[in-house]
């Protein structure tokens, strides 16, 4: 993970994780419906809700709809996910809402990601006798198949950003342009942003390959490519990721994760 940056009056000190969460948070527009998991994605959604997107509608796959999160849940099904919520429903109802097309975003993670935004959270090595077995899809495949836009939060290194996944758990653009639709997945859906500790990435409009959209302060495009196990698509224009504001950092540290369960890592 990148080092903490030196703070000044205008730009306070922040960690790489804090920058990732703040960048992810900015991508969520007010009034949107977003499916989140525990950890960083949830922190990003909570931060958005407490800053620019007070009407953000957060959903949890186990059945919690639009809670006013008192603190970070430890499970996507624990009591906090229905604290002052609008509804406590079922897993089927949540994913059917995604399938109907009403859910805008889903935030995911994974052990490996490829250039088309496909994710592996199942295993490393052969499926029958894996070197490492991970939990599996959970609801990740469902969210990424059925929501409009998938966002991925992950650390950026060659171990994670690979040419070929050991197992394709969760669909990105599969094998490239048109592949999702050909497979039967809902039209116009797919990966949207990948937020890492180095950059915010998107997907090239025609080739559907991953490309840099903005570099975090002090990071070069060459560094990002160096940490990526596949060739990134040429980016037309690369901007610099906005630094976390003092207000974002205060809310993140004091209200979202005061015990630093997540930020402390």
């Amino acid at each position, binding site marked *: 993970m990148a080092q903490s940056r030196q703070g000044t009056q205008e730009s306070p000190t922040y960690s790489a994780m804090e920058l990732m969460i703040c960048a992810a948070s900015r991508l969520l527009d007010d009034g949107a419906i977003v499916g989140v*998991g*525990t*950890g960083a994605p949830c922190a990003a959604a909570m931060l958005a809700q407490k800053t620019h997107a007070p009407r953000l509608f957060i959903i949890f*796959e*186990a*059945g*919690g709809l639009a809670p006013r999160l*008192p*603190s970070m849940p*430890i*499970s*996507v*099904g*624990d*009591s906090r*996910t*229905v604290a002052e919520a609008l509804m*406590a*429903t*079922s*897993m*089927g109802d949540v*994913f059917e809402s995604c*399938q109907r097309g009403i859910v805008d975003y889903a935030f995911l993670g994974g052990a490996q990601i490829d250039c088309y935004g*496909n994710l592996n959270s*199942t295993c490393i090595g052969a*499926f*029958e*006798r*894996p*070197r*490492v*077995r*991970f*939990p*599996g*899809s*959970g*609801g*990740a*495949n*469902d969210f990424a*198949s*059925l929501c409009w836009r998938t966002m991925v939060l992950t650390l950026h290194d060659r171990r994670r950003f690979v040419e070929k996944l050991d*197992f*394709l*758990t*969760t*669909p990105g653009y*599969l094998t490239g342009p048109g*592949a*999702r639709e050909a*497979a*039967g*997945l*809902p039209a116009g859906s797919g990966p949207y942003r990948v937020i890492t500790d180095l950059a915010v990435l998107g997907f090239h409009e025609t080739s559907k390959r991953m490309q840099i959209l903005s570099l975090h302060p002090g990071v070069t495009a060459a560094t990002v490519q160096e940490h990526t196990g596949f060739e990134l698509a040429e980016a037309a224009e690369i901007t610099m990721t906005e630094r976390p504001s003092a207000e974002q950092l205060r809310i993140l540290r004091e209200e979202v994760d005061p*015990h630093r*369960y*997540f930020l402390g890592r």
Partner: protein
Amino acid sequence: MKVLSSGKGKLFMDPDPEAARQFFRAKRGAMDDKVMSVQEAVARFVHDGDYFASGGFGANRISTAVLHEILRQGKQNLTFAGHTSTHDFQILAAGNRNGRKLLARVDCAYVIGLEARGLSPQGRRVMESGEIEVCEWTNYALACRLRAAAAGIPFVPARNMLGTDTYEYSAAKEIECPFTGRKLMALPALYPDVSVVHVHESDCYGNCRIRGIAVADLDLARASKRLIVTTERLVSNREIRHSPEATVIPSFCVDAVCEVPFGSYPGNMPGEYFSDEEHLREWLEVEKDEHRYQQFLDRHIYGVRDFQGYLESCGGLPRMLELRAIELFSRKKGG
């Protein structure tokens, strides 16, 4: 309807609704008093070789008492449905040690992990050993499979899993929609032999109330051939009849009703008590060392008579009241 392709995973249960209808027809006792001990319920209704499913969501509203009793009674060769199975899977995985094999087959959507708490070393050992047959699914896929069974139909179509290895290693089929011509996943009905669901309130017949999220339990209860209910509290039948709209599982689904206060411990029970994060952390920690793991299991499961003994070994009522305070008043950080 055209089948376009088939996943190469093994289907562990027959999705045929005719066989299930015959079973359900023979099921009797909708209005029988089914109150019994957890020991009796597990001895009578969980058999070696059964397909077993556990309700709730990993470490939320799970029936810990029944899971421990399955371990204590040494049940073997079970098939297990794992939709976000976290601590429940972790408990059962303890039965795959010393040459014993509690888990033999797993319909896997999410196992091994305990969400934000990390991965279970024992869960990994079991899943990486090659000793159990694994079929891949997703959380929604398993929910659909239970939905199909609850509805008494052989499959439910959905638009997930398409184009992925998750599908390739599942037992789903890719079909062409008879109306639109679109590709769909056909998710086969899942009728577990026996399941357990932990609820807030039940009467002696098994009419149940749940607070908070239902996860997939309403369909699980209806899909299961036999159902053990554990309940925080027994309530009178008169109470149930007073608010029938609050009943979410009807008694004709239920085979056993066991009153187990704090029955989801160390998991969370909505509106009752929060999860015991210290105990769950210790569990993950001891799994790293075989000797400590054995001592831990002896202290908390094999060396106690029942769930009451487990609660005592974890701090008893004072600890439970602390967890209640976290749940109800956020008195202390919950981990």
